[in-house]
């Protein structure tokens, strides 16, 4: 661990500030990823009882346990075991599900499109609604529009995802059956039916994020609108749209993108619950099912993949952040 910490120091090589910034961020992400994999690995080993027993699931004959021990090399040194685990994980081998007997990697590949579609739709909703409402609230300060946007945001933050899900199901699938409340149909198979089933989950998952984005956009816009450079823009005679859209919004987006990145973890958490409510065969459902069937190989694989994705997303957010803000991209005084 001390070794990895040493490599985390910024490099003194003559690279462009952007490149060296990126390298530093990538290095930090890799270290975090290694630590995460250690925690996941250790977590499964820390289970009370014999890991072979845990990995075996229902099949508990001494012969089966011995086979699992040999299979997983559980008699080896823990470091050797970890090395093998990582080696396998990198080549895409995450073990075999004790529940289905199928490779964990296959289950993950099957669940991924569902969760990705859900996340993408929610994110789209959150960004469009959140940024739109945030701008309105900032520009129409002290008017009913601001009050309405603030109230909606506060509600969005206070209403738990799963309850919103139930209420929407009650309203739009039972009382007024416009949308479907359960099951998944791939987009490629039947686009309208796919959307009919995905709208409610996306609204449920996106609402909290939209609220956070709205609040941050509003705060950042209020900041920008009172900034000196906005006064300069007005002094140039630019139209209201140019002043707000180009000068104020562009600066606000820097903050909003960061917040979006920080909130993606909540999106993943929310996906677990949303998929549970709407019976979508995604990542979240896979996780919960694994917990209840004591399918540790799957759980280990899912947690590792989710965390890796999360770290990757945060890295991408930082890159996006530096693309928007030239002060980071080009270095120099801030």
């Amino acid at each position, binding site marked *: 661990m001390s070794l990895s910490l040493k490599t985390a120091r910024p490099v003194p090589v003559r690279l462009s500030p952007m490149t060296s910034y990126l390298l530093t961020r990538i290095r930090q992400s890799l270290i975090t990823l290694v630590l995460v994999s250690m925690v996941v690995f250790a977590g499964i080993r820390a289970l009370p009882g014999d890991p072979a027993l845990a990995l075996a699931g229902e099949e508990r004959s001494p012969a089966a346990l011995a086979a699992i021990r040999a299979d997983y090399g559980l008699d080896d040194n823990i470091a050797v075991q970890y090395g093998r685990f990582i080696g396998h994980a990198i080549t895409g081998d995450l073990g075999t599900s004790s529940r289905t007997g199928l490779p964990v990697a296959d289950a993950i590949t099957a669940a991924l499109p569902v969760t990705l579609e859900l996340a993408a739709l929610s994110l789209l909703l959150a960004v469009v609604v959140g940024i739109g409402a945030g701008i309105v609230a900032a520009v129409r300060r002290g008017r009913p529009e601001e009050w309405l946007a603030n109230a909606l945001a506060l509600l969005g933050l206070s209403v738990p995802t799963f309850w919103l899900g139930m209420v929407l199901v009650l309203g739009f699938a039972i009382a007024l059956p416009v949308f479907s409340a359960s099951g998944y149909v791939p987009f490629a198979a039947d686009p309208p039916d796919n959307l009919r089933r995905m709208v409610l989950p996306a609204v449920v998952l996106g609402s909290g994020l939209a609220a956070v984005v709205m609040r941050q956009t509003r705060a950042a816009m209020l900041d920008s609108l009172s900034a000196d*450079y906005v006064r*300069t*823009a007005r*002094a140039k005679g*630019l139209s209201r749209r140019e002043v707000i859209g180009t000068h104020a919004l*562009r600066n606000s987006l820097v903050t909003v993108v960061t917040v979006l990145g920080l909130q993606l973890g909540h999106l993943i958490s929310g996906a677990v619950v949303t998929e549970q409510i709407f019976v979508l065969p995604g990542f979240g459902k896979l996780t919960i099912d694994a917990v209840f069937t004591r399918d540790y190989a799957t759980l280990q694989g899912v947690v590792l993949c989710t965390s890796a994705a999360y770290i990757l997303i945060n890295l991408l957010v930082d890159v996006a952040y530096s693309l928007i803000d030239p002060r980071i991209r080009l270095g120099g005084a*801030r």
Partner: protein
Amino acid sequence: MSLAMSEPVLSVRDLSVSFCSDTRTVHAVDHLSYDVAPGEVLAVVGESGCGKSVTAMAVMGLLPPTARIGGSIRLGGREIAGASEKELGRIRGKDIAMIFQEPMTSLNPVLTIGRQIGEVLRRHQGLSKKEARARAVELLGLVGIPAPAQRVDEYPHQLSGGMRQRVMIAIAVACDPSVLIADEPTTALDVTVQAGILEVLQSLRERLGTAIVLITHDLGVVADTADRVLVMYAGRPVEQAPVDELFAEPRHPYTHGLLGAVLRPGGEGKRRLPEIPGLVPSLDTQPEACTFAPRCAHADDRCATSRPGFKTLAPNAGAAAGAAHRAACWHPQHAPALMPTTREAGQ
């Protein structure tokens, strides 16, 4: 003084500005009038909070919605006080432009300087993106930025404070405005950089014939740059005169006080306004009195009970054309007398 003979390009009459909040009203400017002739440099001088910046913002129409404006502001003969934001949008940046005190924060950090100069050209002159960029390079050269073709694609944080202020000037003069308001353009900059900025302003005035309203509290800058000076105190004009006359023969005790610091030899570093004993009063407290009376060595009962008018003193050469020597004082002074106690205000 031939400049002063022509029609004023900017004419402010009885300008009053007050700010209203739920609980009270603050008067920031009280019946201020001045004219600026084409190509003239008028310096507006006074302590912080005397209303000189508020006046400039009122002229630009950049005051917040809580501000209430009275009086008349005519730009090139056209009334612009109370104009709509849309009308002002067609004037600002084209006929009248402004440079601000804070070059470090007045440029948008996430846009290239070329884009920020180009914007104003595209808005008012309908140039294409390409034409605007080419013109931006020219303008950067005009304001004395080296290697303008490269600088045009840089971001504000890559430029020094002095360079940023030059960019602000380039934006301001891009559309060849008839009036340029410069609000403390050198205050935030190093002494060595200040001279360069003033030089650029001077040369632009000569080349483009732009009238400049120079707001400052640095009397050194006034002496070097201005044609005429307006001294403000607590939102009211107290004295106005051609620059040489004001320095040679200040008539208002407050002006005496201001000059005291400059005339005193051995002033440390910057020539700042001296701190005159007492507090700057709020206009609300004494509507019918000389606002300077509480701090004035020559004040008597009359000063405390009735407000002196802003009157032309002994006629001078430019009296007929707005270059008259005027002062608002019941007891105008004659000899340049120093205030009894003055010291450098370490702002």
